[in-house]
């Protein structure tokens, strides 16, 4: 309900956005699009689509803010073909254009992991991407500062600084990173990638900065929720506080931004 009220305020006084610098990004994502969500219970939104932000939204000028912590919640109990998310990811970032690499060398931002309990025979699958840790080991070990965490919690590689040492790949407990082994052509405009650099899921940082959800979230049909973990009123925070969620390898105390249900 709070979301709708915020939205109304935004419509009435556009200028208030500019005054309230710190919450603009949040308002935009969650405020202006509340009606588009699919609700499963009163007051609880399962997912919502975000309108594309125009360049006039001032947070584009402000840059990433530490007031926000972007995160994702993956509901593995949903009957979803996770490969749809992988395909959407590949399309968004132009992955899969390696010609000479072996399959195990090719870049993947999302892996679909199948797990089976041999005792009971229960099996399930879950998508595993960069978990966007709060204390990211890849950032700790990077010798050049290429592996970095934005103020809003997104962990990504600055390819301008990456020397391809692959220390981060060794450090990552989630095996989330890939190394490009060959000369690439035909990259997408928004995801430059090339030989000799390590890369991984960047939570579709180009889309987030433009007010869109990550590609996998859009393709998941509501099985992945994206939102601000710092905002207790955001759908993702509400669901997490009500129903809980698990982080993979929570024992490492890295506090990943990606949470799971049903694992």
């Amino acid at each position, binding site marked *: 309900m709070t979301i709708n009220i915020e939205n109304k305020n935004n419509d009435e006084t556009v200028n208030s956005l500019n005054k309230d610098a710190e919450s603009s990004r949040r308002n935009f994502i969650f405020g202006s699009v509340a009606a588009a969500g699919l609700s499963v219970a009163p007051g609880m939104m399962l997912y919502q689509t975000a309108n594309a932000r125009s360049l006039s939204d001032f947070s*584009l*000028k402000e*840059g*990433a803010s530490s007031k926000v912590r972007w995160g994702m919640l993956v509901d593995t109990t949903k009957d979803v073909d996770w490969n749809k998310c992988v395909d959407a990811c590949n399309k968004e970032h132009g992955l899969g254009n390696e010609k000479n690499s072996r399959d195990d060398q090719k870049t993947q931002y999302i892996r679909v992991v199948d797990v089976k309990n041999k005792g009971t025979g229960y099996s399930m699958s879950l998508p595993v991407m960069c978990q966007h840790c709060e204390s990211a080991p890849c950032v700790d070990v990077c010798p050049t500062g290429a592996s970095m965490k934005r103020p809003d919690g997104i962990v990504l590689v600055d390819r301008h600084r990456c020397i391809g040492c692959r220390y981060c790949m060794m450090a990552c407990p989630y095996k989330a990173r890939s190394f490009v082994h060959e000369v690439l052509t035909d*990259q997408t405009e928004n995801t430059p*990638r090339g030989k000799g650099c390590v890369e991984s899921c960047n939570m579709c940082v180009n889309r987030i900065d433009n007010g869109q959800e990550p590609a996998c979230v859009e393709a998941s049909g509501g099985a992945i929720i994206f939102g601000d973990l710092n905002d207790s009123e955001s759908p993702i925070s509400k669901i997490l506080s009500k129903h809980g969620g698990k982080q993979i390898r929570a024992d490492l105390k890295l506090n990943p931004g990606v949470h799971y249900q049903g694992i």
Partner: protein
Amino acid sequence: MWLHLNFNFGFNSSFVRKSLQKLPLTVAGLALIASLNTVNASQDGLGPKITLPENSEGKSCVLPSEQMRREHPDLLKHDRIQTLREGVRAKADDKALDGSLKQCVNCHAVKDESNKFVRIDNDQHFCVSCHKYAAVSIDCFQCHRDIPEGSGAFHALTNHKDVNYSNVVPGNYSLTVKDMANIAPEVNSDDN
């Protein structure tokens, strides 16, 4: 340089032969030829050939051409840090950042005879046309896309200031040796 002089001697051979007998006149004559060459420099045919974008009449690049020639590396370096590391995607005036390589490519993409964008391995590519002449080898396009996505038509010049620089007219140009000498950037070793 040798070719340059040879051409002029051939063209003015009788003048040169006569003036060799009178040394002061020779010197004056050579100086005259040299100065004519600088004035009439666009005809020297020795500099790189560049192609300015279609539909660019009445528009300019983010800075005047003379400044762009010298300062474009600084713009790109500055704004890549802003964009990637800080998440800043627009300037205060809501327009795209000056140093957006995507925007450079969208405007400056060159088409070949078959109306297809030329890629980075082609000497006609806008960036390559100068960099090859100046023996600059940079790595931008090992990662960045070298041609626009789609037709590129939707992006062309949309973010540019509406300033008319009369020297910006689409078409093929030949930069001169003097132009290129003026472009040579100051060497900085300040960053990554």
